[in-house]
Structure formats: structure tokens, C-alpha cells
């Protein structure tokens, strides 16, 4: 039996949400002035990257409902094209990344026009295999891609911006660039969601046949969703390559890249603006701790001889995929709408409690 419920999403402009968003961005902007530890900066950049990835996936996965588990293809193309344009053609990354985005969008048009004929699990499988094909091709065509050897970044030229010189040394410039890109991505996603595109994407997610009957050109709008998603994912890929300074086919095109991108959105709550932000805040620290528990010591959360560090190092050091897997199961079983869904339920429950207390007369 269906139950009537109000739509959780408030319509139109939410002043509070925008104020909160700007305040957070501002706080993050001044944050390095107080805490400048390289490890903290590193975590910040990884967080921004994950937010961009999660937002990007959300366009095609969360809104349009097309669960691509092959976003490593666009991430990798973003990383490789940006890196190769810099290393081979000496084109600075702030120009090269646009070439990378173009390449990823072109690739998305090819992949989309083939795989969007499929629905549901078949689409998921096709998206995985396409990304794998590209990874294997990158390994194979050594003359062009250097194969498994990968690319090591030599130097990013100095950027002259509004008369200022920006030298990309250390973590800080990346922190600010990452923050700006994350803010821009969130804003762009907000704009997409509050447009005809956003409505059409959601209609396709909810019921393709109904959407089709209401005048929506299914393959066109699915491809538009994928192109937007691919563009931002390639942006993240190019930025990542410049930040970590080394890429190879596994780092750029690996299946775990695709899985992690999906997880950011699913854990946070798909189909929402704030979801991927929450997902990134859960997943990035988790994966960093699993990969390098000594980081916690550097930030001062744990003492060097704490048993936790030794435990993680001994038993979980290569188990991040296992932990992701468990996380997916837990989220799907207990929180299908992600962390955001849990928060909403708790808030609604709290409101009902308060309302019930206010309504019931005091016991005599």
C-alpha cells in the first residue's frame, strides 16, 4: 500500500543551503593558514578530487540513473591526455586539460551511443568492459602510451594569473586549485539539476518508457548526461595526474578507480548535491587510513606506538577493496539512500518525537 509523503527536496532557491555552502568553502580557503601540515593538505586535495568525481558520476548515475562502473575510462583519458600534452607537446596543463576534456567527451559519445542501447545490469557490465578495453589498449600500444612504464611528470610551468605567479611546488597550490574546482563542480551540478536537463535526467531514471512518451529523446539525453559526467571526471583525472605526478594504466584506468567513483556517490546518497560531498568525507579518510595508517600519527590523532596502526598495517594494508566491498553491502542493506538518507530519517524521527511529546497531554 503506497503511503503519501512529501517530497524531501525543497523547491527553488534555498538561501540557507547556499550560505552554508559558501561559508564552508570560505572556511576551507582560510584553513591552510592555520594548519599547513603537508599531510593535511594532501588529504584536502584528495577530498576535493573525490568530491569532483562523485559529483561527476552523480549526473549520469544519480540523476539519469545509468549506473556506469566504467568511469575510469574518462578519468584515465583526462589524466593521460593532460600528462601527454605536457610531457610530449609541452602544453601547460591549464590548457592541456581542456584537450583532455574534449577527448573524454568525444569518447563518451562513442561509448554512450553503443552502450545506452542496453538497460540495467547489461549497461553496467558493458561500461566495465569498455573501461577495461581502454586500460588494456593503453598497456598494449607502448609506442604511443609508454605502456606499463607510465608517465612521470617532470615539471609544471609557472602559471601567470592576473599578474601573479603561481608555482606548482608543494601541496598548497593544489589545495587551492582543488578547492576552486570542487566549488565550481558543485555549482555546475546545482545548475544542471535545476534546469530542464535535470528534470529530464530524473524522468529517465524513474521510468524510461514514460519519459519517452512525454517527448524525451532517450539516447540524446542519456548521452548528454554522460558527456557532462565525462567532462568533469576528465577534469578530475587531469588534476590528479598533475598532483600525484605519476600515472600508469592501472592508476588511471583500473577497475578500482571506477568502483571508488561509484562508491563516493552511493555511500553519500545518490541523486543529491550534498551526497557525493558526504561520500567523499567518508571514503577518502577511510582509504587513506587503510593505505597509510602512519598518516594518523602525523596528524596527531594516534600515538606512534598505538596498537591500531600496527593492526591496520598488519591485517588491512592491502585490503581496501575488501573494506569497500563490505561497505557497499552494508550501505545497500541498511542505508540504500546513503548516509544522507540515514541523516534524513534520524531528523524525521526526531521531529516526530518532539511533535508527539508536544501533542500528548502531561500525565496526571
Amino acid at each position, binding site marked *: 500500500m503506497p503511503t503519501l509523503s512529501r517530497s524531501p527536496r525543497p523547491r527553488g532557491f534555498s538561501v540557507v543551503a547556499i550560505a552554508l555552502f559558501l561559508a564552508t568553502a570560505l572556511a576551507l580557503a582560510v584553513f591552510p593558514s592555520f594548519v599547513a601540515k603537508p599531510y593535511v593538505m594532501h588529504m584536502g586535495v584528495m577530498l576535493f578530487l573525490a568530491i569532483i568525481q562523485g559529483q561527476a558520476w552523480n549526473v549520469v548515475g544519480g540523476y539519469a540513473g545509468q549506473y556506469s562502473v566504467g568511469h575510469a575510462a574518462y578519468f584515465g583519458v583526462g589524466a593521460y591526455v593532460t600528462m601527454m600534452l605536457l610531457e610530449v607537446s609541452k602544453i601547460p596543463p591549464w590548457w592541456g586539460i581542456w584537450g583532455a576534456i574534449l577527448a573524454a567527451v568525444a569518447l563518451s559519445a562513442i561509448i554512450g551511443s553503443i552502450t545506452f542501447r542496453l538497460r540495467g545490469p547489461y549497461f553496467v557490465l558493458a561500461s566495465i568492459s569498455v573501461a577495461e578495453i581502454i586500460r588494456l589498449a593503453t598497456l598494449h600500444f607502448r609506442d604511443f602510451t609508454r605502456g606499463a612504464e607510465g608517465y612521470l611528470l617532470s615539471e609544471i610551468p609557472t602559471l601567470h594569473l592576473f599578474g601573479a605567479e603561481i608555482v606548482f611546488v608543494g601541496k598548497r597550490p593544489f589545495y587551492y586549485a582543488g578547492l576552486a574546482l570542487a566549488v565550481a563542480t558543485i555549482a555546475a551540478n546545482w545548475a544542471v539539476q535545476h534546469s530542464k536537463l535535470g528534470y529530464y535526467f530524473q524522468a529517465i531514471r524513474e521510468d524510461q518508457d514514460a519519459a519517452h512518451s512525454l*517527448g524525451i529523446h532517450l539516447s540524446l539525453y542519456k548521452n548528454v548526461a554522460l558527456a557532462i559526467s565525462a567532462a568533469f571526471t576528465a577534469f578530475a583525472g587531469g588534476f590528479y595526474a598533475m598532483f600525484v605526478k605519476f600515472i600508469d594504466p592501472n592508476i588511471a584506468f583500473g577497475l578500482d578507480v571506477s568502483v571508488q567513483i561509484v562508491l563516493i556517490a552511493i555511500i553519500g546518497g545518490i541523486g543529491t548535491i550534498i551526497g557525493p560531498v558526504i561520500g567523499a568525507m567518508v571514503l577518502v579518510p577511510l582509504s587513506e587510513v587503510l593505505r597509510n595508517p602512519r598518516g594518523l600519527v602525523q596528524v596527531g590523532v594516534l600515538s606512534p606506538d598505538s596498537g591500531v596502526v600496527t593492526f591496520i598495517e598488519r591485517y588491512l594494508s592491502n585490503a581496501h577493496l575488501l573494506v569497500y566491498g563490505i561497505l557497499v553491502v552494508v550501505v545497500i542493506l541498511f542505508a540504500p539512500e546513503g548516509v544522507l538518507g540515514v541523516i534524513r530519517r534520524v531528523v524525521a524521527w526526531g521531529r516526530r518525537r518532539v511533535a508527539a511529546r508536544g501533542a500528548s497531554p502531561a500525565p496526571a
Partner: protein
Amino acid sequence: MAMLEISHVSKFFGGLAANSDVSFSMEQGMIMGLIGPNGAGKTTLFNCITGYYPPSKGEVVFKGTRLNGMQPDRVCRLGMVRTWQKVRPLAKMSVVDNVMVGALARTSSLRVAREVAQEQLRIVRMDHRQDFLAGGLPIGERKKLEIARALATKPELVLLDEVMGGLNTGEKEEIILLILDLKKRGFTQVVIEHDMKAIMRISDRVVVLNSGEKLTEGTPREVADNPEVIAAYLGERVEG
């Protein structure tokens, strides 16, 4: 020129003829009732007309344009829209957003689409529901949402697939009045319905399908008195 011209439409699924050689024609502003026992091919015919299946044989011509093989989204833009027998609400979107999706077929402005949507919701008397999730509506309101959403695409021809199925008497009456009101406003309608009383009241003409073939066509009175129609619904009289 006829608004809709169906000539010799057949649809085969493998060896099974879901429709065979169905023809009828409709003028602007009329209501055509489409009846027939379960499995007669009524919904298949809707699917052939609106582009979900290309007809295996025959022609569908709408306002002079041949539709065969044209995709449903283009058919919708041409001004023909259908509702679904098994309702298809966009469950996780609000009621007004559902109708806005329909309205966006004619505009890119969300503001305009919202106005159109709210107007359509007022017409089906669901404006008090606009901020509720479509997935939670009871069946009567889901059926009305289907109609509001279809009307928001600004159609000339509306195909209603059992919009009264599963409704109580009061709700049926509301839908009947809505259909008659649409007729007054100049819409052309094809109505699939099992409720014979309702069909008799609203239809200008009735087409009867049986086992995929057109059994007969005529005014509601003619069709109701036709012995072949009675036989199709109730079976042949057993002599002996």
C-alpha cells in the same frame, strides 16, 4: 483531413498476430471508444500508434504525417500523447515535477513549465498534492496524474488506456466528466475502457477489437446491439 488515420495495421510477434488489418479514421474533436475482451490487442494498437512498436504492416497517419517507425518522443512533439494502463508515475519526483516533465516538451523554462503543470493539476483537482511524492499516491490520484502529465505536453490527440480501471464509482464519474470537458475544449481522444456504461456515455463512435481483428465499428448504440459483439464478450449461444 482526418486527425488520425489507421489503415490496415497489423502487428506480429513471431507467428502471433496481436493486431491484424485494423483500420479506422478519426476527425478532430471526436472521442473514439476502443473496446474488446482481454487480449484483443487494444494496448498493442496503442503501442503501434504512438511509436513503441513499428506496425508490421499498414500505416498510421497523424495530421497528414506518416508515423510508422517514428519514435514516441517525436510523436509526442507532433501532438499525440498516451497514458499507461499500468500507471507509470515518476515515483521519486514530486507530483508537480512529474507534470513539469510533460510540460517541458514545449518549453525550456522551468518557470513556464511549473505554471503549465500547476494549471493541469488544478484541472484534475490535484493541486493540493503538488509537493507530495508521486510514488505514494493512491491509485485514483495516480490515474489523474497520468492524465495531467499527458495534457501538459499540449497534445491535440490523447490516447487514454483504461484510465478508469480500478477506480470507485465517484472517481470514475470524475474522470468521465474530465474526458467530456476535454472534448468540449477541442481535444481528440481515443479511450480504451472496459466499463461499458462509461464507454456508451462518452464515445462518439466505438471500435471493437477481438483476437487482434476489428470486429465492428459504429455508434455506441449500434455496437451494443450487435450480436457479434455480444458473442465476443459473452460467448456464442449454445443451441440444444
